[in-house]
């Protein structure tokens, strides 16, 4: 039976193998990579200080504060969902840690752990409401965004009596927590902030999960076609809720860094940052509709952001131009992504 069905086709009849180049061009992050290289050469040419190791370390630090969140947001976007509450959720996490420890006069580490629980809880709630109501994640997380913004301001004033959290610099556990979340390491005479290493570590772990574990397979599947995934037995709800919690985890890390880099947090901060994370993911080649993208792409997106942000300063331009620049990068990168993807798939 089988023998009669097998068509004796010559191996090259249908174009044979794809060349390694078109294989590479088929990767989601290739557009962003080209953009990053162009931008790097551009700033290296117009701002000589840009190439100094110290400035490069600053660029990396700037990238990492976006990149850490971009890891979670990229995974979530590949899983087919949005989170608009990420910017303020970072501040909520920082406020939880500082206000709780300050009000109850406990060791800061208690607050840090509570903040982790709260951050994961916010993620869980986002995901759970989404799965229960089947509303678009845009609406659900927009609601969370507004509620958290209000809670951040309201609770901070109610408990601390101001718009910023009280200073925690003299409290127990401050130095050790600062050493974990906001220290620097000197490499070859250059001081590199630890967030850079945390960022790289997160990207590596996320890439591994995405490409080599079954959970990664499920993330692509729930983003690519939720119904098909459900029909073959993928736990869609658990996967999506887990993704929102992963975003919560990233928000916790960044929130703790924001808190311990100084000793207080402004309760009104964070608004608007959610778009930076989403932009980083999109520049990095994550498809807005889900099912396609990579963690590395989000990291390159964040790096582009960091270069543009600091590069403008090193080039001694007015930083007013930064947003224009970012918008242009977003447009160009997505067009390049689209173009490259089509070309690669045709081959």
């Amino acid at each position: 039976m089988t023998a009669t069905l097998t068509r004796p086709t010559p191996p090259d009849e249908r174009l044979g193998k794809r060349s390694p180049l078109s294989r590479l061009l088929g990767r989601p992050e290739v557009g962003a990579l080209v953009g990053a290289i162009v931008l790097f050469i551009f700033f290296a040419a117009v701002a000589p200080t840009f190439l100094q190791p110290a400035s490069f370390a600053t660029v990396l630090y700037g990238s990492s504060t976006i990149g850490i969140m971009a890891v979670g947001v990229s995974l979530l976007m590949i899983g087919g969902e949005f989170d608009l509450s990420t910017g303020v959720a970072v501040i909520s996490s920082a406020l939880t840690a500082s206000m709780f420890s300050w009000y109850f006069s406990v060791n800061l580490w208690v607050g840090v752990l509570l903040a982790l629980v709260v951050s994961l809880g916010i993620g869980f709630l986002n995901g759970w409401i989404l799965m229960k109501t089947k509303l678009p994640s845009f609406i659900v997380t927009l609601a969370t965004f507004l509620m958290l913004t209000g809670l951040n301001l309201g609770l901070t004033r109610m408990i601390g009596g101001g718009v910023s959290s009280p200073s925690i610099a003299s409290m127990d556990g401050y130095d050790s927590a600062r050493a974990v979340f906001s220290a620097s390491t000197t490499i070859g005479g250059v001081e590199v902030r630890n967030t850079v290493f945390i960022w790289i570590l997160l990207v590596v772990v996320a890439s591994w999960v995405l490409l080599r574990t079954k959970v990664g397979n499920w993330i692509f599947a729930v983003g690519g076609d939720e119904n098909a995934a459900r029909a073959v037995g993928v736990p869609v709800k658990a996967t999506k809720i887990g993704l929102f919690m992963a975003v919560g985890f990233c928000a916790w890390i960044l929130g703790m860094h924001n808190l311990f880099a100084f000793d207080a947090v402004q309760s009104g901060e964070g608004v608007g940052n959610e778009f930076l994370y989403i932009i980083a993911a999109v520049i990095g080649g994550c498809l807005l509709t889900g099912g396609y993208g990579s963690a590395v792409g989000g990291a390159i997106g964040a790096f582009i952001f960091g270069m543009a942000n600091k590069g403008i300063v090193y080039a001694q331009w007015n930083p007013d131009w930064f947003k224009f620049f970012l918008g242009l990068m977003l447009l160009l990168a997505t067009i390049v992504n689209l173009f490259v993807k089509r070309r690669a798939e045709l081959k």
Partner: protein
Amino acid sequence: MNSRPVGQQELLRNEGNGRPQDSVPLLALENVGKHYGNIQALTDVSMAVDKGRVTCVLGDNGAGKSTLIKIIAGLHQHDDGSFRILGEERRLGSPREALDAGIAAVYQDLAVVPLMPIWRNFFLGSELTTGRGPFRRMDVQRMKEITKQELADMGIDLRDVEQPIGQLSGGERQCVAIARAVHFGAKVLILDEPTAALGVKQSGVVLRYILQARDRGLGVIFITHNPHHAFPVGDRFLLLNRGRSIGYYDKKDVTLEDLTAQMSGGAELAELAHELEQLGGHGDVVHQVQAGRADTTTTNRQLD
């Protein structure tokens, strides 16, 4: 992991019991009914699926075909009647439960995730893993090899299992889904309108895979609105109309003409022919269908 050798052994064991083939069907539905709120979607439907046999479910749009397969595939639960798997009364709570019971459904649109590579789709939801603890990972190499082998066994020769499955033709995609179900030890294969969106040639390819799955000892439920596709491959035919069974035949008791005529519903067709004639259409073609003389597959489609 539930791989094909296990499934086959189980089938052999069942055969070894020396029962006559029809005594305990793989699946048996008796007077099954289902309503959504106050809408009665299915009433008093009975059918059986045996191993190595193809049971065709025929009906026009809205006849209740999808409701019926959703019950069998575990997406919905029936309200009335009995649903037995290997003689045991069951109520399936999820597609996962149905899969564990050996029932695999291949849907027309949602068989696969288009942007994912073929091998990822093949093992989606049943990934092979290696390593332990936090280093538990997918066995990518083995999964790719098995995918290639299984598809080759089905007679599909692919350039590259790494390409997105969305790039395959509709027929090839159906076949990947069928090969997947067979590999994971399905005993009952539900095919939801596998030929509806396909051209003549592609349909022929899919029909051949249906026969191949049957010859491997699977019980196949083939859902279609095209009697010309159902008749050559089917052993039994269940005809549905407006949620009710209007006929359940063995192949020896029925002809293609009977099926075609019953499917299109005699009285409704006469009315349609009349209307079309008034509008200046070719009502005579409809009359031909009614008389059971039409033998093109397309005539029937146009009436849908």
